[in-house]
């Protein structure tokens, strides 16, 4: 007996949804990210205007000074929609968990140099509260922003900040005890070194324009803070007492360059849209980056001593270079 195998190719009637095809220009297969992003923003049939802002619609492009013809050009180069985002974070979390396990099982926290431990706890624990501020700001951008391309990525960044706050909490519990968390909160509320940064974070809570909030949080503060905390201070602690803290801060250290790709893409697309956008972004960036640098100075001195000024200028130069590459004149 002979069996012939034959394949039959069935062409699907359409490759994607009509509104995606309209957007991409042809009926070709679209990625899950594009399908989960394009045209998702609610635009019509809002029956009532919100009582808290009766001048505008529920979702309204006019809540920022930035003007875009098409808000969907602010795409996320990482192509995170719910599925790909949770998978990527699950992988990062697995690595972070095994790092915590490693430190715990080898007793690295107990054998850590005490002077360096004090320095690490004094610097990293109050940063929980900064990360919580980042969580709140991300939520604000996501709630009042326009266009799913940016609002979904803002929400993911917001959740990531919450995760970072939790990892810092665990760092505190592993390297010290619960009293350290209390002491960190006390320092955040009372210690003079932390007050400029606390003022910056609290001022960012009352920025009305959600895009300016994005500039103050994601571009200026995160841009400088993560470079300072997870590169400069981290290196210093490594020199003093080995890489234990580096292992415990692996999540934020890896999160920052990844998320920077998204921030840079948003800046690039917004600045390329019009000269007005570019000028507005530059004005905001200059204002908030200068303020953030000032606010971080006493904290940097806390961790780095007299090397603080130099380290912070290095971090600022890197951030300026990033923004220049994205199309801003800095």
């Amino acid at each position, binding site marked *: 007996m002979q069996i012939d195998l034959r394949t039959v190719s*069935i062409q699907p009637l359409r490759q994607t949804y009509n509104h995606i095809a309209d957007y991409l220009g042809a009926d070709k297969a679209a990625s899950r990210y594009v399908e989960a992003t394009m045209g998702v923003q609610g635009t019509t049939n809002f029956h009532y205007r919100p009582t808290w802002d009766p001048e505008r619609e529920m979702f309204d492009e006019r809540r920022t000074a930035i003007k875009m013809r098409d808000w969907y050009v602010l795409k996320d180069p990482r192509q995170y929609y719910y599925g790909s985002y949770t998978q990527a974070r699950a992988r990062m979390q697995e690595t972070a968990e095994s790092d915590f396990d490693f430190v715990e099982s080898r007793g690295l926290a107990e054998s850590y140099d005490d002077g360096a431990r004090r320095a690490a706890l004094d610097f990293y624990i109050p940063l929980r509260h900064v990360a919580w501020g980042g969580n709140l700001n991300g939520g604000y951008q996501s709630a009042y922003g326009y266009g799913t391309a940016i609002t979904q990525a803002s929400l993911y960044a917001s959740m990531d900040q919450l995760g970072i706050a939790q990892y810092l909490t665990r760092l505190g519990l592993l390297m010290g005890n619960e009293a350290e968390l209390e002491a960190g909160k006390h320092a955040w509320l009372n210690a003079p070194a932390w007050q400029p940064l606390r003022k910056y974070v609290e001022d960012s809570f009352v920025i009305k324009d959600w895009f300016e909030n994005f500039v103050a949080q994601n571009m200026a503060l995160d841009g400088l803070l993560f470079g300072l905390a997870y590169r400069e201070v981290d290196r210093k602690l490594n020199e003093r007492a080995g890489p234990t803290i580096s292992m415990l801060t692996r999540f934020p250290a890896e999160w920052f360059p990844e998320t920077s*790709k998204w921030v840079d893409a948003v800046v690039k697309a917004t600045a390329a849209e019009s000269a007005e956008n570019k000028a507005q972004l530059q004005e905001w960036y200059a204002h908030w980056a200068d303020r953030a640098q000032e606010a971080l100075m006493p904290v940097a001195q806390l961790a780095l001593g007299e090397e603080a000024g130099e380290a912070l200028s290095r971090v600022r130069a890197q951030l300026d270079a990033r923004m220049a590459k994205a199309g801003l004149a800095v």
Partner: protein
Amino acid sequence: MPNVFIALQRNEETRPIIDAILMDNPGAQLDEQPAMVKINVPGRLVVRKSTIEQEIGRDFDLQELHVNLITLTGNIDESDDEFVLSWIH
């Protein structure tokens, strides 16, 4: 010039790789088959790391290609940045 080709499974992971190959090889012909995509190119086919990274927005190791690779023809010249198929020795 005789063709070289590469055949990949057709799924969400290979879509950006296929797009990148089509971008980097102007003479490429796409042969879509059930669950498989074959890309024929006269003479020389290049798979470029940088183009794939631009399509997927993350770092890509060219070795990841092999997870979804079904078959190929030609002599392979492989570096960290490029994966080239051709009949040239």
